[in-house]
């Protein structure tokens, strides 16, 4: 009996000691000068920013390159004097695309590392879970890496901002192209069974009408088979199929249709339309991608003469060890470019409030092909896209860029010329 007591007591003591030890370890402050006005993560010489990304696990393919690319761009800016004399320190945490991990790593960033802001946290299911936490702690939550409409709720989440063209806007633009180009043809839709597919479908139906689709199907990521869905499209005689799919399921849809001797015109979301990714997935069958129509809001890596691509490639070579240049690198660097612009605009006396105010001031022009729309009432980000297609194994833009909103507004041509990067490549506000 005595020994049980000792044993239990010891176990308790040990677990308390362990927790206390862990707490004691955590006291270390980052080196550097004193904080200016008690703004978390900001000193006279440094700004600490954090993110959560899938660096490991099934979702990490491709996405794991985004944050290092952003970091490389920050290193480029830091090497040229930083922003208002401060260097940007970007802390990347791996959440493996598991919402439970996201909870932990974001708390660690905010409460332990005391980051100034969260930048470009990736994923709808992962980031949705930390919205309330970030709001409660008044942490700016900039440029979430997902096209869900959830990020654009200024009343509910005043500190959260989206970045990429949201899925509804994209759905409207894709449907607009379908309506104009394939008038009178039977149109069908395949979407992922979550916000991505649902928001996209909402956009498509805003243009084609609630009865404009001959068939609507969904898939789930955990079941890698779209045979029944594609079979149904074939049986119903769909001539155009709009896909709100991730790359793996775009490839699967193209492959399944080919196996069924079924050749509709596929029109795909920017999420699952990257040629490089698709051709890697399809391997020898990559000929199936020929003629695939999609849309995008940033320059393509195939545009080697584009000044933005030249800039990003230079930064990639010098600060990112020249890793394989693709859409993920462009994405990461575009996010970093916009963030530096916002920091410039927020001025020398950087606070969380001044950062939010700077984003809401809006008017930022960068590498994108569509307007970036930030205001007090709009936290959405890019508001349009330009159509792309694959010809001879090369993905390229065609036609004008379009802009629209995620409500009932019309899809309009966006005619403003694409901005040029500054000569030295350093963002200004």
């Amino acid at each position, binding site marked *: 009996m005595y020994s049980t007591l000792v044993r239990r007591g010891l*176990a*308790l003591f040990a677990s308390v000691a362990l927790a206390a030890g862990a707490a004691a370890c*955590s006291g270390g402050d980052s080196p550097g000068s004193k904080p200016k006005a008690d703004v978390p993560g900001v000193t006279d010489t440094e700004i600490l920013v954090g993110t959560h990304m899938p*660096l490991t696990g099934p979702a990490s393919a491709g996405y794991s390159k985004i944050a290092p690319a952003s970091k490389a761009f920050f290193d480029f800016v830091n090497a040229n004097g930083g922003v208002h004399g401060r260097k940007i320190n970007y802390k990347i945490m791996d959440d493996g695309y598991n*919402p*439970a991990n996201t*909870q932990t790593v974001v708390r660690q960033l905010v409460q332990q590392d005391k980051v100034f802001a969260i930048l470009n946290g990736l994923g709808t*299911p992962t980031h949705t879970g930390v919205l309330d936490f970030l709001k409660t702690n008044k942490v700016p939550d900039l440029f979430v890496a997902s096209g869900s409409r959830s990020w654009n709720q200024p009343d509910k989440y005043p500190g959260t901002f989206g970045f990429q063209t949201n899925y509804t806007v994209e759905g409207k633009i894709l449907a607009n192209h379908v309506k104009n180009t394939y008038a009178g043809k039977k149109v069908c839709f395949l979407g992922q069974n979550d916000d991505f597919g649902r928001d996209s479908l909402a956009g498509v139906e805003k243009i084609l009408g609630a009865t404009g689709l001959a068939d609507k199907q969904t898939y789930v990521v955990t079941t890698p088979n779209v045979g029944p869905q594609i079979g149904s499209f074939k049986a119903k005689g769909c001539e155009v199929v709009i896909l709100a799919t991730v790359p793996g399921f775009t490839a699967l849809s193209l492959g399944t249709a080919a196996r069924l001797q079924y050749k509709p015109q596929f029109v795909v979301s920017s999420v699952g339309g990257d040629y490089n990714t698709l051709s890697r997935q399809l391997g020898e069958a990559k000929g199936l991608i020929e003629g695939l129509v999609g849309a995008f809001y940033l320059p393509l890596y195939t545009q080697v003469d584009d000044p933005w691509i030249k800039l990003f490639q230079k930064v990639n070579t010098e600060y990112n060890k020249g890793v394989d240049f693709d859409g993920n690198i462009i994405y990461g660097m575009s996010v970093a470019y916009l963030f530096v612009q916002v920091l410039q605009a927020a001025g020398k006396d950087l606070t969380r409030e001044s950062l939010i105010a700077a984003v809401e001031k809006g008017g930022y022009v960068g590498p994108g092909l569509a307007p970036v729309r930030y205001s007090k009432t709009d936290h959405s980000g890019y508001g349009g896209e330009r159509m792309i297609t694959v010809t001879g194994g090369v993905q390229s833009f065609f036609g004008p860029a379009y802009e629209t909103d995620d409500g009932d507004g019309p899809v309009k041509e966006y005619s403003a010329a694409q901005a040029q990067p500054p000569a030295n490549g350093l963002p200004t506000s």
Partner: protein
Amino acid sequence: MTTDRMPTLLRHLGFAAVAGLALFALTYTLEPFRNFQLATIGAYLCATAGLTVLTGLNGQLSLGHGALMAVGAYTVALCQNAFADANILGGEVLYVSLGLGVLTTIVVGLIVGLAAARLRGPYLAGVTLAVSVVISAVTTIWSDVFNSDQGLSVYLEPPPDYLTMEQWQAWLALGAALLVMFLLANVIRSRFGRQFRAVRDDEVAARLAGINIARTQVLAFTVSAAGAGLGGGILAVITQAVSPSAYSLVLSLNLLLAVVVGGLGSLAGAVWGSALLVLLPDLAHTASEQLSLSPAAALRLEGNLPLAIFGLTLIVVMIAAPGGIQGLVRRLIGGRR
């Protein structure tokens, strides 16, 4: 019998009270993030304590405890959201939801337990493995209710004014963990506990002694499921979200790993294991940050290095202390049983 049991009960009560007070004091000294980690340890402990009784004392291996946690978590999420929609508000509602979560998990645990009691060894592992895998399929098929892979968010009332969010989470989780530990400690020392062990050691001998094997096994599974259900419910509350990927097979394997590394069959071992599950990845991450690597190597190792350190530590623990951490502790304090 009665005279013998009263002191046990009192002793466990006293112990729980002391532990409760110590942990209560601890939540005031810890930083918010450490309190969150403490809460996570509490949530895992509810499940690992049950699992160590099932696997260590009753000899039934379960790869499905992550899924049982998911049952508790989804029930709590659905109840909380339904109560909020029906405008039934107030702090007490949460305890009703948690109670319903435990009840639902008990029912599911009973069903799985009935099947499990007929199976042995790898077949048992197979059935519980299937339970783990089926969760994401269920959330997909009834996606209107469970919202597929994206999962649900959990409606929560703000914590009482005198507590921070993290302190409240820690109190809730530790309270639940202490309750589970207290109840299980009593079960282990009771007639049921002795029957669990008898069945584990020799089924024929146990049957000759008049023990109903199947009923004992089902009971052990159900008790263990209740712990997992409460743990899952608590985890849903402290993370304010549930999704299939948070309760995948990996979680089930981690729970099993925790009880084995902590020391199979011992409640103290479950404490070690749960603490390790939460703190080791964190420590590994910190350790990997201390290493200065070339950018190219860093790019490749980022995220992977903590996993490698985690794995290596586990291998070392298993080699150095096959009886788990609690076995090592017992050896160190002088060969007491």
